């Protein structure tokens, strides 16, 4: 059984990575914050009495499920929005300003830090752009294996798929990342 302090320490250790994972997945910092908060609440409410050693796997599973729930809600919302917008008459003031959707393509989720070296910042920007462009399952598998450092079995458990699927997603993700980064003059050396 874990104490409040143990749960607090765990959440403090994962909240930033969880936010980045969610941000890469949903491409929206506000939604990513909501996803992380919901995930933390679910962990505390349903599994707050578990041993602290169980938290990492439980939290990852909850986080990935919450991200998937966000996609489902977005899909339903988009469907209804598209349906109603096609029925409603168009007014000039309702036309979307292209500037509203203009994104900083070099760094969509984080502003460049003044103290970071330019090269590191550029590498990070290129890497983040490539990660965001990956298909959902490939990105999920790649980040769980190589960032969260889960083994294949643990990743399969979190993703709800077989170990073979995890290996396939990771392999495809690595190839896709390598292709994208190569266009920017960065080579990816897979150590496996």
């Amino acid at each position, binding site marked *: 059984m874990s*104490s409040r302090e143990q749960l*607090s320490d765990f959440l403090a250790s994962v*909240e930033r990575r969880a936010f980045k994972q969610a941000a890469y997945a949903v491409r929206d910092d506000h939604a990513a914050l909501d996803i992380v908060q919901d995930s933390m*609440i679910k962990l505390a409410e349903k*599994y707050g009495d578990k041993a602290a050693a169980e938290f990492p796997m439980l939290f990852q599973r909850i986080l990935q499920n919450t991200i998937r729930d966000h996609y489902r809600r977005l899909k339903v919302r988009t469907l209804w929005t598209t349906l109603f917008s096609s029925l409603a008459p168009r007014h000039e003031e309702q036309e979307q300003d292209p500037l509203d959707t203009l994104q900083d393509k070099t760094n969509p989720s984080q502003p460049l830090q003044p103290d970071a070296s330019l090269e590191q910042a550029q*590498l990070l920007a290129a890497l983040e752009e490539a990660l965001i462009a990956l298909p959902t399952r490939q990105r999920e598998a790649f980040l769980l294996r190589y960032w969260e450092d889960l083994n294949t079995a643990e990743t399969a458990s979190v993703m709800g798929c077989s170990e073979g699927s995890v290996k396939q997603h990771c392999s495809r993700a690595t190839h896709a990342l390598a292709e994208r980064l190569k266009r920017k003059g960065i080579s990816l*050396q897979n150590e496996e």
Partner: protein
Amino acid sequence: MKNKHLTNDSIRKLLDHATVHLDTTTASHLRSARNRALAYQAPRPAWLDRHGILVLATRSRHGIPFWALSILLAAGLLLGTATYWQHATEHDHSDIDIAILTDDLPVDAYID
């Protein structure tokens, strides 16, 4: 930016770097989210301490340890049961009453 190499380890370091340098607003929101989540933590039963071990050595309101009270209670129950059983068997003449009514007393019942 040309001829740069990324390994799995350098990717991990870059991504970790991204989390360290989150903007202060996001970091503050995450802290608030954490505190909100902690309020939802499933409560621990009062009879388990923080290691999940059954708690026995606590004191009652009057300063008497609960283990002592438990022993006293058990002793009282045993004494009460023994007394009741003894009393019940001493004054149980129902079998004799039945024998008299059915005229089925043994011969030595008439011997003084």
